[in-house]
């Protein structure tokens, strides 16, 4: 397994069967060549967690760990949608306030008009779809740069939120189901069950793929690497569920607080769904193609305009989902929902995770990893007692650092020819 290099006969045998060693070797070569993927995000996440844990022991507690998820959820969800727009090399500066508009629609429908929660959620999501369609058509069909279109949206949506809020009053969201999204937890047993389902599903997909490819005589990753991936996911999920299932209430007699926050499986589900769309469907393939070389995509018969509109629809729809989570977490919607730093945090999350601002490169997982980094910075700086002024500066610097890494790795890749 580790030493034999077998040259198989047949058309697929253009390269030797990889071993664990050669697999790691290839990975290292890609990293050195500038294809660093999520490495900076993971490294940054570890460094930040260790740093904050040493500086403030209260950072390293089950309660704070759970807080991180609910604090970072809205930004992460918006960033997941932004990845699609960034993949085309476009930008959506209006995503933050688009989430605000959708949250305002949600609050109006459920609280002011008194409809049930699912009607309100539907209204918010439809609002997101409409916003995305308008932005996308302006960019793709009229041909206005996305920067300008969405900057105009940024201003206009801010105004729409104010108008929906009747000039500044805030609307509370009291519906139990909506409040539960960001404020309640799964029962510990359900948490374990979902984690088990996730690991089993991942294992099934990976092993089936390995089996199918091997059966056809195609190159496969070594089985040891496949098993290691599955085991890695199992360990991470297991540890997370274990910690989240610890009692984190300060006074157990008053209220018991344990379990996985409900928003976590929501993010996980959307992560899996969007990853499937990007990696396993021809639509996703076409998104990458348009981001890589729009002219080549056009000649291949891909409707570039339709792809361009669709990514803005996805982005604004995910912003709506982010807005719903934000409204749930705050129990209310105010004129600043989706404002201030939400957009920059979301763009930062996607870029820190490894999605390129130049288009053609990125994954939905990047948004989650980057969202975690942003949440840790925000949370840790809060615990350290820094003012929000310092927080803004630090987050801005981190975003700049991520964009620098993106640009430098791109240059290195151009020099070594790996991307």
């Amino acid at each position: 397994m580790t030493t034999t290099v077998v040259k198989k006969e047949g058309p697929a045998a253009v390269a030797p069967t990889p071993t664990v060693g050669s697999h790691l070797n290839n990975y290292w070569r890609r990293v050195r060549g500038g294809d660093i993927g999520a490495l900076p995000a993971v490294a940054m996440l570890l460094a930040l967690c260790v740093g904050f844990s040493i500086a403030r022991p209260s950072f390293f507690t089950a309660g704070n760990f759970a807080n991180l998820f609910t604090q970072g959820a809205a930004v992460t969800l918006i960033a997941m949608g932004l990845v699609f727009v960034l993949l085309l090399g476009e930008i959506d500066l209006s995503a933050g306030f688009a989430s605000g508009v959708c949250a305002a629609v949600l609050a109006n429908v459920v609280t002011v008009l008194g409809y049930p929660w699912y009607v309100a959620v539907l209204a918010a999501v439809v609002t997101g779809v409409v916003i995305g369609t308008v932005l996308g058509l302006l960019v793709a069909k009229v041909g206005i740069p996305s920067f300008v279109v969405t900057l105009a949206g940024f201003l206009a949506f801010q105004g729409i939120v104010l108008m929906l809020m009747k000039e500044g009053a805030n609307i509370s969201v009291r519906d139990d189901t909506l409040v539960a999204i960001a404020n309640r937890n799964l029962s510990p047993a359900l948490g374990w069950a979902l984690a088990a389902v996730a690991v089993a599903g991942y294992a099934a997909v990976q092993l089936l793929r390995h089996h199918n490819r091997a059966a056809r005589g195609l190159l496969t990753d070594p089985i040891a690497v496949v098993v290691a991936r599955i085991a890695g996911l199992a360990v991470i999920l297991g540890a997370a569920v274990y910690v989240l299932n610890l009692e984190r209430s300060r006074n157990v007699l008053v209220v018991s607080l344990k379990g996985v926050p409900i928003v976590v499986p929501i993010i996980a589900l959307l992560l899996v769904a969007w990853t499937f769309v990007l990696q396993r469907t021809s639509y996703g393939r076409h998104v990458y193609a348009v981001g890589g070389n729009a002219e080549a995509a056009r000649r291949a018969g891909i409707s570039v305009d339709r792809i361009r509109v669709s990514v803005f629809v996805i982005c604004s729809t995910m912003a709506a989902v982010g807005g719903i989570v934000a409204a749930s977490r705050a129990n209310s919607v105010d004129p600043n929902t989706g404002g201030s730093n939400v957009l920059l945090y979301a763009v930062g999350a996607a870029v820190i995770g490894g999605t390129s601002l130049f288009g053609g490169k990125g994954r939905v997982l990047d948004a989650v990893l980057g969202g975690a980094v942003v949440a840790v910075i925000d949370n840790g700086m809060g615990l350290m007692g820094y003012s929000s002024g310092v927080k803004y500066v630090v987050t801005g610097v981190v975003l700049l650092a991520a964009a620098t890494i993106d640009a430098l790795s791109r240059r290195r890749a151009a020099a070594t020819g790996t991307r």
Partner: protein
Amino acid sequence: MSATPLLELRGIDKSFGPVQVLRDVAFSAHAGEVTALVGDNGAGKSTLVKCISGIYPTDAGEFHFDGQPVSINSPRDAAALGIEVVYQDLALCDNLDIVQNMFLGREKRSGIVLDEPTMEQMAAETLAGLSVRTVKSLRQHVASLSGGQRQTVAIAKAVLWNSKLVILDEPTAALGVAQTAQVLELVRRLADNGLAVVLISHNMNDVFAVSDRIAALYLGQMVAQVKTTDITHSQVVELITAGRSGNLGLAAEPVSNGAGAAPADTTPGAVR
């Protein structure tokens, strides 16, 4: 070789506004042969190719494919007949791998899921059929490939769809010596596999190395289409630059066409 050419054009005219770019052009390509299309800049090579591939409509003239009269009104029509063009800029996506590029826009699916194993297998078979051994892995990004390898991928992409006629627009223009040899070898192999190949080139060495026939365009007119063995290097150069060479071309009795077009008629455009 075969008696009826795979593709035969007769009397093709094409104007852009007042400028007539193609004048009564006849052209044929035979299966199993490499037909080199030569001509100076502005002679109308690219326009002719775009007419064949359905990008430009023609003003007059007829198309015969496999002996049958056909009309090509869009790139889709051309693709349906089995005509594929490899353009000079290759149109590959750097951020996708070889298999993904070869199937771009025509992905194999099972249900809504991409059928990666089938695509990878077909790509591997196509490359093996062309005896391509220069690529390490089918899953490497196109960005990491050399110019010759990219050209190979673009050609393989054109061959993948059971195409019958492959048109290559200056495939060796940007390549080094070794890579040029590789690509020319591949071009020869395409023809040996039974495809009709049209090779556009400025490089006479390449033309004489691989082609079976040479078609020379001069200011929008097809001045000669002859077997490569019946013509010399310098004669081709004369045809390209002056439109005639000895008894070939415009001045003498018109060989194939260009009827009535004396060189004097065309000289105003030829002052260069």
